[in-house]
């Protein structure tokens, strides 16, 4: 408990510093915020116009398709908010500055993963959450279905954390971060729409191997009553296993760090 309090305090300090740095560049902050909002509304508009013409997408009506889209955005935005520091990890490794992270009395993984929360994403999380729960409410879910939804969204965030840890580990071994994270983001974008639109073997690939389906589509399906309790338990176990493996990989990668250039 004491440890959690300590890490929460450290996270708040690091996030405050990160926010102050961003607030220093107000023009960039405004431009990025407008850009992110525009992208969201362009896609939102696209789905509305599309479904007005076609009435359904892979068997889902407008509200259901919007829920897939909003759930995707919710998980994407929260993980961007929490794990933004991963995008700044490469210079630390290349310059040897990671030595300073290692020498501090907090977990190097914690610092590298969550050391720079993104204020732009934080601003959008609240309205996005309200919109998601509003659209979810239109589908009249039961309490159990809502509980499953929340659990699976949290599971999606755990899987996102695991992926970011894998990227960090790969960064230590190969010095390559930017492309790996962008490829992850492009694959994750495949979850913007229900994974049912994809044909096999691609659907199986993005459900289980790169579990975009478990991260994004399963929560939305749960609120529509399309997930059995066993399916939910299985998804949570999968998320836990992936996180465990990512920790193992991080420890393995850390042993390969050569402290070059320091």
């Amino acid at each position: 408990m004491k440890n959690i309090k300590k890490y929460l305090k450290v996270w708040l300090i690091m996030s405050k510093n990160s926010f102050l740095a961003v607030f220093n560049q107000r023009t960039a902050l405004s431009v990025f915020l407008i850009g992110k909002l525009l992208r969201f509304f362009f896609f939102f508009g696209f789905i509305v116009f599309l479904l007005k013409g076609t009435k359904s997408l892979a068997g889902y009506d407008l509200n259901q398709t919007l829920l897939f889209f909003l759930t995707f955005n919710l998980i994407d935005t929260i993980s961007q908010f929490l794990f933004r520091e991963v995008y700044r990890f490469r210079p630390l490794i290349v310059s040897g500055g990671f030595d300073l992270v290692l020498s501090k009395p907090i977990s190097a993984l914690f610092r590298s993963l969550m050391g720079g929360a993104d204020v732009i994403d934080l601003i959008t999380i609240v309205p996005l959450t309200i919109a998601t729960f509003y659209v979810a409410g239109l589908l009249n879910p039961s309490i159990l279905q809502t509980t499953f939804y929340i659990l699976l969204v949290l599971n999606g965030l755990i899987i996102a954390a695991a992926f970011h840890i894998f990227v960090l580990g790969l960064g230590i071994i190969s010095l390559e971060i930017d492309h790996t994270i962008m490829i992850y983001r492009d694959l994750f974008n495949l979850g913007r729409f229900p994974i049912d639109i994809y044909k096999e073997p691609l659907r199986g690939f993005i459900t289980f191997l790169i579990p975009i389906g478990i991260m994004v589509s399963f929560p939305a399906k749960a609120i529509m009553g399309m997930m059995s309790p066993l399916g939910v338990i299985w998804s949570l176990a999968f998320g836990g296993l992936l996180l465990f493996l990512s920790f193992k990989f991080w420890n393995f990668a850390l042993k390969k760090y050569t402290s070059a250039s320091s």
Partner: protein
Amino acid sequence: MNKYLQIFKLSFQQEFAYRLNFIMWRVRNILQIILTFFLWSSVFKNPQTEVFGYNQEKILTYVFGILILRAIVFSARAVDVAGEISNGAISNFLLKPVSYFKYWATRDVASKVLNLSFSVIEITLLFLILKPNLFLQTNLVVLFAVFISLILAVVLFFCLLFITNMSAFWMPENGWAAQFLFIVIITDFLSGGVFPLDIMPLVLQKVLYSTPFPYLLFFPLQIYLGKIAGLEIIRGLITSFAWVFILLMILKFTWAKGLRRYSAEGR
């Protein structure tokens, strides 16, 4: 002419210097196409379906056409102009006997040739794997109109990109932010790069047609697909040409104003 040929050669070689960068960029393009391909395949599961004036054949041609047109229109090295302005590297070019615009236009052509070659290979592979029904335009007059609209689109995008990058004269630290907003988000969506613009209500389409964006990707593809013909093509080409003229004027004006403001920081 010879110096621009040398720039073309050097630029081409430079693209190969960062092979991983280039390959990853192409992989990302393919992933985008996969998303839109399956999205539209799902909508047009039944080959008889016709929505927004598209049938399965035409919408899949649109998806594949976007891959090629992106390579022709959107591949550009002039994205680096903002960086050169903010770090002062542009001073070197101002002292050399080369036109800064022609220099970047040549580099853009090198990038387009390389990206187009790769996109043709990718389309062939995707075609063999996904086996889509594609629409083949055989009317030579229509193909000529597509060609003209593409040339105008390339010049339009060059102007848009350059004007956006020149914002670095006034905000040296935020040139990349302007690029993110105007090129990555606004231009990509409003040019039809993410979805066909004719799924939108007619009023919005009319508003969009009075901007330069649809003439980058959407308009050439509409001509190719035979969705517009005759007078509509001519009207579109005239509007596109008018935008080229307006943007060239803005480019010239912004460049002159920007140079007066430029103080070679960091040099």
